[in-house]
């Protein structure tokens, strides 16, 4: 668990980059830090590995202040994915991936094994090992950047706009792959992005920052459902209701099934989003049955979905 406790960063010229931010990243969760440029999101994150030294406040990892840990040890125990990829052009892919293991003094055989394991995990062919970053595509390089951060099996990974330099299709692919990987690993992750859609998709919780202050810190669906103020609502965008539908699952709104109701031709799964449900309803009419493991467990109608967005929208207006 990472705890940021009233952290402040004031630069020499008096600029306040981060102003009294407190937040907790629970073990195994991904927290995305999002906000317009200059909001202090990267500064906040790099306080954790002390690339940014704190002016006031404290950061604790599993209860222990990072000020009490040797800074080199601290960084070697935290994975770091750098903006614009940051691979070393003069090192092969294998060398890039095994930097931290190498710094920690792993033997050659163990490093090789780890490189092979990671290449498999990030779905790259083994023969890229001896190639240089310049020979890889942007998406492949970014995968290597992620593998490098995971190499020494850190409990914490910091990611600074890791997919920012990619085209939308590749970005989407990598986001999905990373979510899969993350499910298997259970690493605690802080993830900086300026893209609210990415923040909502990748984060178990989203921290919205503005001018160095933490504006709202909530799970994606709560952020969508009840943005704290106009800034957050505007930042989420005009299509807030649609995003909200993507963030809520059928399971959360379905009603008990009517007796004798069949599964129909194309039933919903409880884990489908309301966005999928609404699209099916437009095509097939409502109510739609919800089926899990071959059994009808509930049903959803357009009114149920409408109720979710109404209720949450009215909460905001109050």
């Amino acid at each position, binding site marked *: 668990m990472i705890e940021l406790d009233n952290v402040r960063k004031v630069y020499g010229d008096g600029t306040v980059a981060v102003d009294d931010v407190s937040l907790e990243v629970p073990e195994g969760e991904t927290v995305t830090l999002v906000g317009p440029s200059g909001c202090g999101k990267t500064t906040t994150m*790099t306080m954790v*590995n002390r*690339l940014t030294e704190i002016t006031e406040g404290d950061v604790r990892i599993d209860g222990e202040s990072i000020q009490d840990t040797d800074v*080199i*040890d*601290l*960084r*070697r*125990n935290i994975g*770091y994915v*750098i*903006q*614009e990829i*940051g691979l*070393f*052009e*003069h*090192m092969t892919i294998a060398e890039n991936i095994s*930097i*931290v293991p190498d*710094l920690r003094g792993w033997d050659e055989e163990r490093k090789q094994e780890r490189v092979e394991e990671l290449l498999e995990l990030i779905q790259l062919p083994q023969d890229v090992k001896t190639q*240089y970053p*310049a020979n890889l595509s942007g998406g492949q390089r970014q995968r290597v950047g992620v593998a*490098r951060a995971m190499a020494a099996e850190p409990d914490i990974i*910091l990611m600074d706009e890791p997919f920012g330099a990619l085209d939308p299709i590749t970005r989407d692919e990598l986001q999905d792959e990373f979510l899969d990987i993350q499910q298997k690993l259970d690493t605690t992750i802080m993830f900086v992005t300026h893209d609210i859609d990415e923040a909502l998709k990748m984060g178990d919780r989203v921290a919205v920052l503005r001018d160095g202050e933490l504006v709202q810190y909530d799970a994606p669906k709560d952020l969508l459902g009840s943005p704290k103020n106009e800034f957050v609502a505007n930042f989420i965008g005009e299509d807030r209701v649609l995003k909200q539908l993507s963030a809520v699952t059928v399971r959360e709104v379905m009603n008990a099934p009517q007796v004798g109701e069949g599964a129909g031709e194309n039933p919903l799964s409880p884990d489908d989003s309301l966005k999928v449900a609404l699209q099916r309803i437009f095509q097939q009419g409502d109510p739609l049955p919800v089926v899990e493991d071959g059994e009808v467990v509930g049903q959803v109608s357009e009114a149920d979905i409408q109720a979710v967005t109404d209720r949450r929208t009215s909460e905001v207006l109050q």
Partner: protein
Amino acid sequence: MYPPLTILGDTLTWLVENQQSVIEQTIQHLNVSLTSVGIALVLWVPLGLFLHEHDEFAPPVIGTAGMILTLPSLALLPLLIPIVGIGVAPAVVALVLYSALPMIRNTYTGLEEVDESMVRAGRGLGMTDRELLFKVKIPMALPVIFAGIRQAAVLVIGITTIAAFFGAGGLGESIFAGIRLDFPRQVLGATIVVSVIAIATDYGLLAVQRALPGGSEAT
């Protein structure tokens, strides 16, 4: 006046007829040049590293090295003779001094210009300052550092010619004798050999650079 083709023919004839002394002078020439480049390398590249760590000294040191390069070698060499004596020694001292600017400046600039994001990446991954220097900064600055070494080597091979005037030996002897005797084929012949040595050294160092890890893109 000679027609050009005749000059070329005469020059080749001279080179063949005098191959014994040409080879001897080439060896002397290389000896003076390479000794100087070697000493310069050991002195100036580390000085460039030092300046990278201590920025405040960079302007005065690089400024001085630049000033040295403006001193005409025909003036610097006789000035050194009372201090270090005649022969190879003043030549080596002068050549080491002339190498200072390209080597120091390129080492310093190369290190300073390593992409800030790369340095940040290294730090973030937990490298110490020393690891950062040897694993990231120096390898990334190597093309620029090498360009400085190559430039210094070519410069030194050229100026070694002048050193012959003050008793350091080398191909300059043939050139100065040729001028005194008004014997163009000898001047031209020895000059061609100096140029060939300079070009070969430049390409030789380029080959070394390419053979280093990640150096395949070097030009």
